[in-house]
């Protein structure tokens, strides 16, 4: 009996430690915002996890801090700034659209346009060559 109890305790202990026991906010809107933010903040201890999915105490501390900031009425943008001021841009999974990062956002579109332009040029050249050959 004791062994079974022990096995059960070990099996379910992870559930006891799971990320946030229950919702952090009674208000559904706040809870949604909270979950969206923590999914996009990098856990710097375990760099390929968000603080939503990590149980390292720094992630727990940061979740608590974000909870506090939300409950005192800070906007998502203010919270992002708060984190970047302390941990740097790397803490956010989604780079912000400002400063040098604009290049990051615009580069794919720039590559696409350049590629299309080159493709059109090559196709035109090939077809004109082909038509030249037909004319001969």
């Amino acid at each position, binding site marked *: 009996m004791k062994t079974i109890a022990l096995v059960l305790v070990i099996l379910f202990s992870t559930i006891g430690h799971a990320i946030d026991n229950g919702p952090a906010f009674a208000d559904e809107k706040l809870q949604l915002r909270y979950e969206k933010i923590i999914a996009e903040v990098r856990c710097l201890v375990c*760099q390929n996890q968000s603080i939503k999915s990590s149980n390292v105490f*720094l992630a727990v*501390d940061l979740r608590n801090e974000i909870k506090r900031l939300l409950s005192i009425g800070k906007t998502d943008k203010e919270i992002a700034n708060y984190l970047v001021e*302390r*941990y*740097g841009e790397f803490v956010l999974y989604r780079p912000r659209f400002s400063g040098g990062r604009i290049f990051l956002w615009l580069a794919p579109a720039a590559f696409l346009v350049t590629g299309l332009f080159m493709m059109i040029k090559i196709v035109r050249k090939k077809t004109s060559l082909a038509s030249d050959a037909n004319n001969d």
Partner: protein
Amino acid sequence: MKKKYAPIIVFVLMLPIFFVGLSRNKSELPSPLIGKIVPAFVLPSLIDPAVMINQANFNGRFVLFNVWATWCAGCREEHEFLMELSARDEISIIGLNWRDNRNDALNWLITLGNPYELSVEDKLGRTAIDWGVYGAPETFLINPQGVILYKHLGPLTERDWTLNFMPFLVTEQT
């Protein structure tokens, strides 16, 4: 004829980007706090919790601000060097005990020695967040005006001290 070389030229132009990007150590993140005034805090002294300490307590001189904990293996590793450094009287070391058990921390200082001129206790980790701490040990170099000059991640060694910290002391003091 010129077109033939275009890919090579593009590749050569990209080389510096690869060189910079790949030689960077990804686990060491640059702190946005460098060049800024230290984040304000008020924390109890680790030795005597009745005494409150804030950043003004170490204004007016160069200090090392060392984040440590008894659960941190790297802190044990650097402890010997911190003892040596504090004995040399080159700089005062301020300790921030992060998310630790107070008794364990006091035991550590009693048995291994106390390199800190001042020790504060950050039980909840709030101050650590303000300082952008994400892994102990971390060591900040602060100038007399309270500006953070440099941040070192991981155990501090003699080599780090002479290579990365000393140059600041020399240039700022002259």
